[in-house]
């Protein structure tokens, strides 16, 4: 007689909706927990994740400021140059916050299942009864918490240290754009997670490859509409179209239009509501693709015997 039966509990496997929802919610919290608690037990990440990245952003801010000084030296109106510089510095600061989330998606979402395989946890996850999507959602929630600290510190540094002025006209739309962008980004991360599982070692290099090229094609440090300048045609337009697949571009563009005082320079689509709608489409598409990819590639990895093989 099993222990459960001996204690008078039913031994059959439960599969009712309430139980499954509860199980998956617990899985989300269970996977988010070590990310948050683990981070607190090893506080060095605050220095490396929060303080040091600000310096990289500061470099881009100083570039715009040096351009501003050069423009004034060429006789341009100082007030106009100051407004222009503020808009571009705000562009960098907002881009810096999005970079934090993108790096988290790459290194702590997309690469994570591969990492789990490398350290031998993946087989344990696969045997557990919850949905793999819950597992990935837990990673996303925990990752978002850690990354939000970095993103927030970037924003505060932008305002306090670099004197950036933001003006929020429509806070609800701003919040909607922000959260839908995160949903779409992490949905993309979930989809990548299953692909990375299949690609093995190439995944690590792919994550590294998706840094600077995505910073560029998504316009993290300059208004993405700059890619549509006639001087850069036709390749600039091609890069912009390719870049818009990554939700960061549309999300950032909308956030910039909703927070920069006056007209934001070179928007890619001059209506944030349309961008929000497109982001919603991307979010749904990536989450669905993630679900299909995860199921398919798990089966494929099992069939090819790659699910537990390390260093391949």
């Amino acid at each position, binding site marked *: 007689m099993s222990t459960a039966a001996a204690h008078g509990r039913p031994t059959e496997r439960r599969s009712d909706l309430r139980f499954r929802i509860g199980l998956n919610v617990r899985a989300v919290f269970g996977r988010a927990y070590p990310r948050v608690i683990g981070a607190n037990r090893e506080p060095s990440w605050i220095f490396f994740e929060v303080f040091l990245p600000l310096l990289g952003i500061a470099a881009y801010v100083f570039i715009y400021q040096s351009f501003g000084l050069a423009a004034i030296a060429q006789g341009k109106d100082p007030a106009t140059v100051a407004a222009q510089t503020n808009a571009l510095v705000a562009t960098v600061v907002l881009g810096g916050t999005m970079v934090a989330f993108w790096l988290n998606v790459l290194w702590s979402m997309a690469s994570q299942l591969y990492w789990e395989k490398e350290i031998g946890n993946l087989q344990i996850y696969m045997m557990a009864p919850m949905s793999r999507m819950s597992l990935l959602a837990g990673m996303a929630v925990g990752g978002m918490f850690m990354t939000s600290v970095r993103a927030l510190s970037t924003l505060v540094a932008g305002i306090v240290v670099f004197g950036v002025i933001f003006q929020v006209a429509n806070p609800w739309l701003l919040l909607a754009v922000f959260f839908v962008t995160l949903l779409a980004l992490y949905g993309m991360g979930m989809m990548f997670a299953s692909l990375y599982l299949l690609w093995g070692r190439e995944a690590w290099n792919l994550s590294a490859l998706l840094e*600077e090229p995505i910073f560029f094609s998504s316009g993290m440090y300059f208004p993405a509409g700059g890619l549509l300048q006639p001087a850069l045609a036709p390749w600039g337009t091609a890069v912009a179209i390719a870049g818009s697949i990554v939700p960061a571009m549309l999300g950032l563009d909308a956030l910039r239009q909703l927070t920069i005082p006056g007209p934001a320079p070179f928007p890619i689509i001059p209506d944030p509501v349309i961008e929000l709608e497109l982001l919603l489409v991307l979010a749904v598409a990536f989450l669905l693709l993630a679900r299909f990819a995860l199921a398919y590639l798990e089966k494929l990895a099992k069939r090819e015997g790659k699910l537990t093989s390390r260093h391949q």
Partner: protein
Amino acid sequence: MNTFWKTFKVAAWLGWEMDSNWTEPWLFIVYSIIKPIAATFILVLMYVVFAAIGRFNAGPLFDFMYVGNAFFIFVGSTLFGTFQVIQSDREWYQTIRYIYISPISFYVYVMGRAVSKILVSAFAVVITLLFGMYVLNPAVQITLTWSEIPMLAAGLLLGLFCLLAIGITLGGVTFLMARHTQTLAEAVPGIFYVFCGVLFPLTILPGWLMDVGKAIPLTYWFELSRRVLLSPADQAAIAPLTGLGTFSDLTILGFLIVSGVAFFVLSIGVFKLGEYLARKAGKIDMTTSY
């Protein structure tokens, strides 16, 4: 000395194999080029956008930024090359305990592993500079005469030596860290990005921050490289802004020699200290997987 050289050679070969054997050679070359070119294009677009809004032209400033950014490729790769050795061997491959107990110098092993990254980044630097000269419009004004090559080569060797020593100094710290190498590799170069006048002249920085920049040897390496490579017209326009105009080329070379030796000694000290503290805390072969 023979053991050191053998360790260095084998570690460099191992580093190259580990970096490149995941894919076909052509894909590895594309991979090695795309990243730095994309990073350069971020700067190109920043300039294009500012120039388009403000209708201004600052060619020399752009050339200054372009060449600085090209040489900065060395910084990111070399630092990542040194940071990631300890953590990848410890957390990913979990081979650090075997390498650590083998009869080699672990310091030389780390240095050797980083060298393969330098070789790949040298290729990317050359591609980036050629791209600026022959593809960008307007082209970056780069001139190099035969007589300037020894100065460029001496600066490059000393600069890379300094960089490697700085990397190993900071790499010693990773003995004690959880697996945040990627963040570290992204964040630490940010310090040099801001303070070394890579993308903008030092005089843009507030006074005391400019002094910080002047205390970092890499600042002088970037300055020397630009003096050799930029056209005389660009140099004349930029020289008053760099804050380093009073130093001759030879003085800068002297600074690089002195600071290279100083960082080499420091790197040995910090590496040994990190190693000692990690052994004491039982962290030499820890794995952190959250």
